[in-house]
């Protein structure tokens, strides 16, 4: 039996019918066709499926779709405002902070969540916050630089 689930997705109210066993990741990808949230492991170890639920950073593969009911979910697709990229997105491009790009949506969502809590993180704080997001291509160097640079720009703009 399918469940009727209503939640807020990237600022818009949505309704969906989902199976009991479907995760939020499944709902986003298979029911909402939002493919920006990636599946890398489905066990909560890689962070490729990072989204925020009521402003909390979660692995969407570890949360059931039915649990989304009444919640506010933000994905990578909700980060740019119209034609304007979020500073994190812009800095990832400028710093060449992605190679294959599969981890990038999850890393950017996680980094945004960090900067909402800590607008002036140290390098160590960035590294520990992003420790749940695996990247196999970059060695994290340029990712950390992009996040620090975006934080700096966002502080300047505030």
């Amino acid at each position, binding site marked *: 039996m399918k469940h009727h689930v209503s939640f807020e997705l990237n600022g818009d109210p949505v309704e969906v019918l989902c199976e009991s066993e479907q995760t939020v990741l499944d709902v986003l990808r298979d029911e909402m066709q*939002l493919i920006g949230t*990636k*599946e890398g492991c489905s066990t909560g*170890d890689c962070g490729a499926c990072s989204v925020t639920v009521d402003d909390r950073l979660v692995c969407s593969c570890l949360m059931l779709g039915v649990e989304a009911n009444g919640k506010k979910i933000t994905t990578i697709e909700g980060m740019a405002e119209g034609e304007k990229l979020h500073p994190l997105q812009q800095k990832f491009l400028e710093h060449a902070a992605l*190679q*294959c790009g599969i981890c990038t949506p999850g890393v950017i969502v996680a980094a945004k969540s960090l900067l909402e809590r800590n607008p002036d993180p140290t390098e160590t704080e960035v590294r520990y916050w992003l420790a749940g997001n695996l990247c196999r291509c970059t060695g994290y160097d340029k990712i950390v630089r992009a996040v620090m640079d975006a934080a700096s720009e966002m502080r300047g703009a505030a």
Partner: protein
Amino acid sequence: MQEKVGNVPMDADLKWVGTRQIRPDGMDKVTGKARFGADYNLSGQLVGSVLRAPHAHARIKSIDISAAEALDGVKAIVTGTDFPEQESKMSPAGEMMVNYNHIRTTVMATDKVLFEGHPVAAVAATNQTIAKKALKLIKVEYEVLPHVIDVLEAMKPDAPVLHADLITAGVSPAPTKASNVANRIELNKGDMEKGFAEADQIFERSFDTAPVHQAYIEPHACLAVVNQDNQAELWVSTQGHWVVRAHCARLLGWETSQIKVVCAEIGGGFGGKTVVYLEPLALRLAEKSRRPVKMTMSREEVFRASGPAPGTHVKVKIGVKNNGKMTACFTEMMYQAGALPGSPVSQGCMAAYAPYDVENVQAIGHDVVSNRPKVAAYRAPGAPMSEYAVESVVDEIALKLNIDPIELRLMNAAKEGTQSAHGPKFGPIGLIETLEAAKNSDHWKAPLGPNQGRGIASGFWYNIGGQTTVSVVLNEDGSVNLTAGTPDIGGLRASLAMMAAEELGVEYNAIQPVIGDTQQLGFNFLTGGSRSCFSSGMATVEACREIAQEACKRAALIWEIPEDAVMFEDGMVRPAGDNAGAHEPMNLRDIAAIAGKTGGPIVGNCSINAQGAAPSLGTHLVDVEVDPETGKVDVKRYTVIQDAGRAIHPGYVEGQFQGGAAQGIGWALNEEYIYNDKGALDNASFLDYRVPVASDLPMIDTIIVEVPNPNHPYGVRGVGETPIVPPMGAISNAVSRATGVRFESLPMSPPKIRHAIDAARAAGSTDLKM
């Protein structure tokens, strides 16, 4: 060496090459729109799922699919008999040797399962739940056989034999009995006896490296459809869609032209996506069901059943004069091939002493099968293990002879004109330049803290060229479309667009580069061997030069002067010689506007077998701190120095350096496949197979050395693979210098470090520093 005509000098004033442009595919990737392997869907698609063997080694007595077939929602089932038999014959395919009998056996077991996770059957069903239910209904009767995992165990005379017909090749006279040693290779240069006789001292050690996985974050994924007219289409995450097409056509018994393969964005490969696993299964299921079939591996399946890198055992013996000059270098190595022959042991042999100019060299390699998944390429396949062993002994020599490790390497370094043991005489190579840069770096001069050690190691990788096609179209408004065929894993489209913009004298943003599908271009060998920027770059330049020439021809027509009286310069077509100044120069937009009236569309096509790939050498510096209580090693500082030939996009060159170093750090300190006594993998998850995370690593500094490759118009060398070669040696040397104990086994995990320190203490070692 003489530079080729048409090469762009290193001191040329360039507008785009060497700058840091934003990659054309970047916008889609930071906004979540980019489509990777699992991001394609078609209406009515089925879910394909694989039944995998629970045993490391077993005979399949029977497979009964009747109950699964009867389940509602199951649309097709395939087993080994759905794929035609293939002749067992090795044929070269770029970096790898290909045997279609072996590929078929890897894709789907027939009479035996050879590793835990070996596919036995696959189903296509209307959803995942039904597919899983169907897998449980397939009854497979096994006769479990004794198994063997470790490479040295597999070589023992009483080891369980995987293939009853496997007779060791490369041994004369040929053995009469089957064994797990598929091949013995030998590489010789000079006279070993003489070389060791000349030595004042001989250093000898043996090393073991654990099997590791490429651990790309994107699991294998594809979507297949086969129409009623038997035309097939496949969307797939791969390093080479023409290679996928070739493999699938052969495995399915189809014509190549029946299959169109579209290369999805690829979420990491590192060599692991140069082979096929799901693709032939998905196509056969799609053919049987006449419905689209989507297949994705779980992370667990990726670990259990996709190509890892071999575990190895490597012996090293080096003879030196007391002044540090090497006189003889010997190595013997045993590499796990996995369930079927074909480990990268020959590359291991060839690379082992490539950074050194030594008169007498011998390398012996054994390709050994065992009950693991067939290995796939992993970044500089085969080289990291043998060079780790050699670089460890080189460091020991430096310590014992009290010579600075950089000076020791400089004294013995390979350079232009060095006759390599594996064949070629080196052209210009940048090893000495990387060592000099290391010596002059702040890192090398910085003080060390307590419990810290500094390690250095160099590394070599050949790089390849190969078959490549690029098409460049000058659009009617003067903008440019560029279609290449080597999958872009780390910024290739940016580099190609930069070279095209440079050649055509247009803005970088005027070039729109894409990776075309197999219908759009001639054959392209896969992205591997660090070849994509080299080969597709070369083809891009040639295609652009064809456009420039055609532009001159069109202008000559309009101006009514001979074609050779027109020149192309800085994006402008100008009358030259006697006609100089006689006509108003035209830019490519002007030419594009008159293309229709002067002969039709202007297109540059280049199909080549790119020759002249040049090796890239690098030197890594690392500082580690060892916790004497826990044995944990922290990497405190890391510098990668490597010859890029010319860095087209320095940001993505640095990215290759940093990424390779990070993978090497994981290989050195954490990563290993752990098998239980049943031959099953015990750590098939990212929680238990621990790749480096952000908090494990420091910033990774880079120094790009540029010794141009004379065979490429911009001097490009491949840079992607070399960076994973030096880290294990550098880190092992750093740990050894910090602790005073020489380490001979990877990974250097905390228990091993603790154990080695305790053992050295118990033995009363005077070298022990903690």
